[in-house]
Structure formats: C-alpha cells, structure tokens
C-alpha cells in the first residue's frame, strides 16, 4: 500500500506542476491574446479593451491565476473559458465531445498492441534463435523508427485511395445515422488509425518486453521449470512472460506521454476529430483557453494512465503486495 500511496503522491505533485505550467506558458507568448485573436489586423483600442475584459485578461496576473485555479478545481465541470476559435462553445464542451474518440483510439490500440507484443515475445522465447525471433525483433525496430504519421499516410494511400476499401478521413460517416449503422461506421473509420497506432506502440513495447523475456530466460527458476519436465508453452507463458511484463507495466506511465504525441499526429493525418486534432488546431490558431484546457486533459490522461499502470503492477506482482 505504501507503494501506491507514494505513486499517487508523485502523480499529484506532477499534475500540480503541469497545471501551473499550463497557466504560465500561454502567457509567455508575445502579444496579448486579443491581438492574436484579431489575427494581426489592427484593432481600435476600444475593441482591444473590450476583448481583454471579455476574456478576463485585464486583471492582474494573480487574480487571473486565482480565477484559473478556481475554475478548474472548484467548479464542475472544470471551466476553461470560451474557445476563441469555436466561439461561443466552451472549452470544456469541445473537449467533452472529442475526448471519447481519442480514448477509443488509445484504448483499442494499447490493448491490441499489448496482445501483439505479448504473443510475439512469448513465441520468440519458445523458438529461441529461430528466424521467427529474428524477424519479430527487427520488425519491431522498424516500427520503432518509422514516423507514425507516415505509416498513416501510407495506409491511407494503399487502403483508402488505391484500393478504396476504407475511408480516407474522419471518425464517422456523415450519413451514418444512429444505432448499428453508427457503430459500424465508427469501426469502419477507426480501423486505419487504430492499426497505425497499434504498430507504433508495438515498436516501443516489443523491445522492452523482449529484453525482460531474455532476462527471465536466463533465470534459475526457468531452468528449474525445465527440470520439472513442464511443457514449453507452460514455461513460456506462466514463467517467462508472466514475469516479463512486470517491468514493462511499470513503464506504462512514461510510454503514455510519448504515445500522446503520436496520437496527435495520427489524428491529424486521418482528420480524426479527437482531442489530439483539437490540440493542434488550438495551438496553431493560438486559441489560449482551448490550449490550456486540452493541455490539462492530455496531462491528466498521461497521469491516469501511469496510475493505472501502477495499480496493475500492484495486482500482478505479489512481491509488492504484502
């Protein structure tokens, strides 16, 4: 239990710092928000003042900070203001609409790539020194190196443009309606982005998993297991893999952070309207409230992901429990 407490404490601390950064960074930009909002056109002073007041930018920094924190933590749903770009929608509304799509993407890809990596690592442990192991390893290195967005582009080319089997962009068809049709359309549109993401995560995961499996392979308890005449499959799964993904799960939090970056690029490529795509939009158009809000939620996803990893560790590793 101390393990979990310590992890939660760290997570809260990190989150706190991140939220503060969230406040500070956009305000470091040259030019006030109002000027950006007007995209460079010279506005009369009067209008600028009105805009500043509207967005609460004429208050002293401390007041802004207080309001910022209060709105996020003391109100529900957390209030980040109104988006400049999508005026008059509130930031929270926009994020609320987009977040589930991103979670769908991340969740599915993570689960798939985990299974893929796990299976391949187990098989590689069984067929040590074989061509299979070699192929699996180098394939994963390739996917580690390839830019995720490019995989997406290639997949679009092959499956959407050339073969025409899958849609080019979007998360759901325009005319999908509701019910089963809707669900099917969602799946249909999600295939390519999920495949792309899965391949990228596989590239990161497999090498770690394999490293851990190599260590386990050399361990005494595996030798003892062989001495007991256990079948190779049993040894591969219950002895090698079971012990290998412990160190990998503990790294879940950190891999989430780099994953978010890839998700953003992938959503952009596929025109998939999720949180990542929103962030890119927000940043490029200097939509500060939206930037603040989406950064907040992205960081939240990463931290929650890390905590999930820690909880999983606790459940899976008996050495941490008692």
């Amino acid at each position, binding site marked *: 239990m101390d393990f979990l407490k310590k992890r939660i404490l760290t997570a809260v601390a990190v989150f706190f710092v*991140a939220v503060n950064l969230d406040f500070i960074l956009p305000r470091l930009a040259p030019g006030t928000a109002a000027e950006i909002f007007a995209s460079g056109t010279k506005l009369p002073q009067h209008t600028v003042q009105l805009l500043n007041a509207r967005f609460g930018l004429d208050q002293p920094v401390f007041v802004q900070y207080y309001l910022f924190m209060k709105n996020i933590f003391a109100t529900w749903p957390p209030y980040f203001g109104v988006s400049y770009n999508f005026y008059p929608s509130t930031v929270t509304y926009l994020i609320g609409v987009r977040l589930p799509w991103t979670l769908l993407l991340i969740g599915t890809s993570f689960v798939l790539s985990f299974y893929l990596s796990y299976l391949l690592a187990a098989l590689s442990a069984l067929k040590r020194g074989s061509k299979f192991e070699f192929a699996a390893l180098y394939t994963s290195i390739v996917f580690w190196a390839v830019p995720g967005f*490019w995989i997406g*582009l290639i997949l679009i080319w092959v499956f959407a443009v050339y073969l025409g089997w899958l849609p080019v962009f979007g998360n759901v068809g325009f005319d999908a309606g509701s019910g089963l049709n809707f669900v099917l359309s969602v799946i249909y549109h999600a295939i390519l982005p999920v495949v792309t993401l899965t391949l990228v995560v596989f590239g990161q995961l497999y090498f770690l998993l394999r*490293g851990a499996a190599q260590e386990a392979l050399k361990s005494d308890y595996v030798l003892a297991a062989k001495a007991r005449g256990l079948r190779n499959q049993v040894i591969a799964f219950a002895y090698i893999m079971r012990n290998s993904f412990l160190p990998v799960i503990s790294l879940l939090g950190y891999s989430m952070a780099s994953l978010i970056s890839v998700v953003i690029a992938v959503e952009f490529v596929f025109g998939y309207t999720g949180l990542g795509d929103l*962030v890119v939009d927000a940043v490029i158009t200097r939509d500060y409230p939206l930037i603040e809000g989406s950064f907040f939620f992205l*960081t939240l996803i990463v931290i929650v992901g890390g905590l999930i990893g820690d909880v999983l560790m606790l459940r899976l590793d008996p050495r941490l429990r008692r």
Partner: protein
Amino acid sequence: MRIRRISRSIKNASLAAKVGSGIVLAIFVLVLVGPFFIPYGPYDTSSVIDSPPTLAHPFGTDYLGHDIMSQIAWGGDSSLLVGIASALGAALLGLLVGVVSGYYDRLQPLLDGGADIILTFPSLPLLILFGSMFPVTDLLITGILVFVLWPPISRSIRAQVMSVKSRPYIESAKVSGMTNREILTRLVIPEVGPIAIAYFVLTVAAAVVIVTVLQFLGVGNPDIVSWGSILYWSQQFAFYRGDWWWILAPGLIITLLALGFALIGFSVEEIMNPRLRT
C-alpha cells in the same frame, strides 16, 4: 587501454550495427554531397509535373515539377543538424543529471521529480505551442528538444549508476581515499559511458522524427524545403493527384535514417544489456 577496447568492439559489432551505419552514412552523403551533384535546385519548378520515378528524376516530381530528390538532399540538413545537436545536448545533460542523482542520494528526489514532470508533460503540444508563439529557428527547436529529451536518458543512467555504486570496488575506492569526483570521473563514468552513447544514438533517431513531425504539422515555415514540409504539401495534394512517390520517398528516407540509428543504438544497448537493470 580504453581505445583498444573500443576498436575491438567496433570490429565485433553485430551485422545490424554495420548495416545501420551503412544506411546512416549513405543518407549523410546524400544530404551533404548531393546538393553539389543534383542538377536541380529544390525550389526549381519545371514542366515535368507529377512524374513518377524515372532516370531523370529518381524520386519523381511533385505537382509543380520540383525534383523530389533534390528537395530531400537540400532539405535534410536542418533535420540532421537539429536532430544530432539536440540529441547531443540531451545525452550530455541526461548523463550529468543521471550520474549526479544516482550517486548523490540527497539530490535524488529533486532531480528525479524534475525528470518525472518533464516526462509526463505532453511534449509534442509543447513543441507546437512554442513553435507557434516564437519565431521558429533551429536553435529554438534544438533547445526545446534538449529540454524534452533528457529525462528518459537520465533515468536509465541513474539506474545504471545506482547499480554500479553498490559494487565492491567502489566501496574500496572510497575507503582508499579517492574523492567522490575522482570516483565519478575515473570509475563510474567509464562504466556508464557506453550506455549513454547508445541512448545518444537512439535519441538522434527520435529527435529527427520529432523535427519532421513538427515540420509536417506546419510549424515553422512550410514554404522552406525540409523533409517534413515536403510531406506537409504531399499530404494535401498527392492523394488526389495520384503521386504516391511524393509520399513514399521523403518518408522512406526519414525512416531509413531513423532505422539506421536505431539499429546502431539497439545493438550497442544489446551488448550492454547484461549490466542493465530496470
């Protein structure tokens, strides 16, 4: 003595490392020497538009007749420069922090916590944010990348240092009167040095890819030819014009470069692995 050890390990280097080095070298040649030999400039338009790869244009041309090979050859230096420079900075900083936080327990929570925070903060949005707020120069991107990339390196170095620290010969060095600084420079750093080099190489791969993503997203000036900007334009036009080579060629080059570095980095890490503990 250490030189002999290094040259021996170069000879024993795995096939993967050699292949990786070959690829990296080839691309370096393309980027450094190519511009002198390729007859077209990267901004030269021509009437040969939408041309698939031919002898005249080995990587094809785009919708305005730009020779894509030329674009890749000329546009590579920013990616390479920023990639290597930021990886170098990140590796040095990561090494420093990793060694210090691994060796001096008092500083550990502070340094580690700092690394934690940076690791958790979404890096790409941060980069895009800075890229859109301030004028985008190679220096700016390098600076931010160093900031973003050093934590994972410091983490692994720290783990290594902690395991080295507990070894008996360090104890005996302390007892025999070596100062901490001497222990660090003469005993610890040579032990973790190779691993730091492996991480440096892998970070170059990662940095080059990140730079490309930024360029691809339109941060900075997409009118300046760079690997990412080629893809920026190709994403918009290539699909409906059927110019598959326009997407393939630049991406392939980036992939090959990253792959080359990855092969080198991973095979070095493999050799070092027995001493690694997560």
